[in-house]
């Protein structure tokens, strides 16, 4: 991981649901499991709070990868939120792929509050994948870059 950070810093935005994945990230921290510092976590009440526009906006502002983490299907704090998010994201990611945007740049993972280790593993994997892909050129807005 250190090598990655030295060479280039990808920017990864992680939308984490308040009830599971955000707590999972917390657990990863308190268990001293590392995950890349390139991952910027945005806390959302539920994975279904993530509007497709949030994802596109993140890319516009220079994100290289966007990952959405929520409770496991069936475990949603709001009972059904992540079922809807699952359908929406399937369609949106498929559309991004259709427009020729690398499909590996977007991802959905289900991480529970007890899965600190999974959170760390997922983020490490995702960060190295994004690092392989390099900078996001296809969905960026030059005016929004510093």
């Amino acid at each position: 991981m250190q090598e990655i950070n030295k060479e280039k810093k990808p920017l990864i935005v992680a939308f984490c649901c308040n009830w599971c994945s955000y707590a999972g990230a917390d657990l990863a921290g308190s268990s001293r499991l590392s995950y890349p510092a390139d991952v910027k976590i945005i806390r959302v009440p539920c994975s279904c709070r993530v509007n497709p526009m949030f994802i596109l906006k993140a890319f516009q502002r220079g994100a290289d990868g966007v990952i959405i983490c929520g409770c496991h299907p069936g475990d949603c704090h709001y009972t059904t939120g992540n079922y809807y998010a699952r359908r929406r994201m399937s369609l949106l990611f498929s559309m991004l792929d259709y427009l020729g945007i690398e499909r590996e740049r977007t991802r959905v993972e289900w991480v529970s509050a007890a899965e600190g280790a999974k959170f760390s593993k997922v983020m490490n994997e995702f960060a190295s994948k994004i690092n392989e892909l390099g900078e996001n050129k296809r969905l960026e807005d030059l005016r929004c870059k510093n």
Partner: protein
Amino acid sequence: MQKLETLMLEKAKNLLSSGEVSRVLGWKKGELGYDVEPSVFTSAQSLDNFVYNVFCGANLSKYLVQETKKEGKILVFLKPCDSYSFNQLIKEHRINKDKVYTVGVECQGKIDNYKLKENGIEVVESFDEEVDFVTVNGKKFTKGEIVLGKCSVCEKKLLDYDEVISINEKRSPDKDRFEMVKKLESMTADERYAFWKDQLSNCIRCNACRNVCPACTCTKCVFDNDNSGIASKANSDSFEEKMFHIIRAFHVAGRCTDCGECSRVCPQHIPLHLLNRKFIGDINRLYGTYQAGEDTTSKGPLTDYTKQDVDPSDVFGG
């Protein structure tokens, strides 16, 4: 077609004079014959301009959102594709059905005015099914060559109406409507990116696709919000166009009846229906075949779920 128009006119006049309806929503003759536009007729005299021919491609259902808020009942003529939009609007409680008298009319496919103008049209000789028009270089065209893209793949049926005016059997589609979507899907990511960059960079952000779309009926639209970042045309980058079109298509996903109005009105000839059809194709593949507007009661695919739905990471097979 002339006969059909006469029948429709008769119907409209009868209903107007009996007082059953106070207005008629139909198509109005333009100055040049081919520039037919939607119009509301309020009297028997104004119906002199009423027309129904191969140029009546416009979908009338969206006008009913505003029209049914007014006093009195309105008569509307709906082609098969319009009726799906109509049903979808009923389902979304956007139209007051009690204030509409629906008459379904037969449609054998409409003409794409842009394709026609590209050839330098001089005169329209006939408005009948087999349209004859002469271009500046004297060439004559048959209807098949200039029919709207949506009509060549149309599988839509005449749905429930108060009444139906139809003389001939509907023609079956010549092509599979997902043909182009499948072709794009089989390309490499780079080719697809190049294709869409080329197409979408033509966008002038006139918002015609949004304004005409019968599924886009929000009174406050996200694209009118200056803070959204996608409210205006970006000069320096193609990102905004991509974002606009992804979001526009996403907002109607699961509700789009594939009426093809977006592509029909696009002044830059961007094949916008390909974005909508991608969503329709995915929905059919992942969540079972669904045709928006086929009925007025079923749940849309994005307002529904099953516990066995595929995970986004598995959509592409791993």
